[in-house]
């Protein structure tokens, strides 16, 4: 059994240029906490079983939002697109090229993608 959330985080950390970018849960920052210059957020929307054998689940789907926020608009536009093949190489399913997400701070913009993983039990 693997920890899919850890797999997601570890895959992002493997890229040297992103090694110092914090990776935190969406919604976990305090109101008065300062945004880092560049960072990822994630949220596990749900997990659900899609296959069963002998009354036991054999495949579980994990559904995540993965977002990237930055003071650099060029990075906002490129990082998740660069993350896509890295995640796919680790077995994640990543559809599309992402969507804009809202930032609490005027200094940052952000984009998000939906990432799923089918865990074979």
């Amino acid at each position: 059994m693997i920890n899919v959330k850890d797999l997601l985080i570890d895959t992002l950390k493997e890229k040297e240029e992103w090694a110092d970018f914090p990776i935190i849960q969406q919604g976990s920052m305090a109101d008065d906490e300062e945004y880092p210059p560049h960072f990822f957020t994630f949220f596990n929307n749900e997990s659900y079983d899609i296959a069963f054998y002998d009354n036991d689940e054999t495949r579980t789907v994990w559904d995540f939002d993965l977002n990237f926020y930055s003071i650099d608009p060029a990075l906002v536009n490129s990082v998740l697109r660069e993350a896509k093949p890295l995640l796919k190489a680790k077995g994640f399913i990543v559809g599309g090229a992402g969507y804009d997400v809202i930032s609490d701070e005027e200094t940052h913009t952000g984009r998000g993608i939906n990432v799923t993983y089918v865990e074979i039990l």
Partner: protein
Amino acid sequence: MARMSIVYEGFGDMLERIDRMGHDLKVAASEALEETQQLVQAKTTAASGIYAGAGRKGYATGDMVGAIGAVDPLEWAGDVATIGVGFKLPAGGGWHSIFIMYGTPKIAKDTAVYNAIRGSATKAQIAQKQEEVLKRYLSIGD
């Protein structure tokens, strides 16, 4: 509005049978999509806590209520149909739905609203609804 495509297996056979029975496929598909829209919009409305006594934070007030009701109607372009579900983004309160559905680093998303539109249970209910509508056409003229 939410942009998503859902591919279900098995509908191809049903559509072929409906076509062989002489029914208009576009009429059948249109009905399936419109009932799907009603299903998703009802779930979105309920999850947004519009009604008094819902016991939840009332996100959907004013413009956001309007954004639920303003979604695009069914439209055919050749053999491809599209229909709006969720929140109409250009509508006044529609953009607020992005806060609610995706959150921010400092605001957690509302999973009830998100799942009403994009959750696996909703996708399963959509499949069930569409199968139900298509089966109606299979039973006409039997």
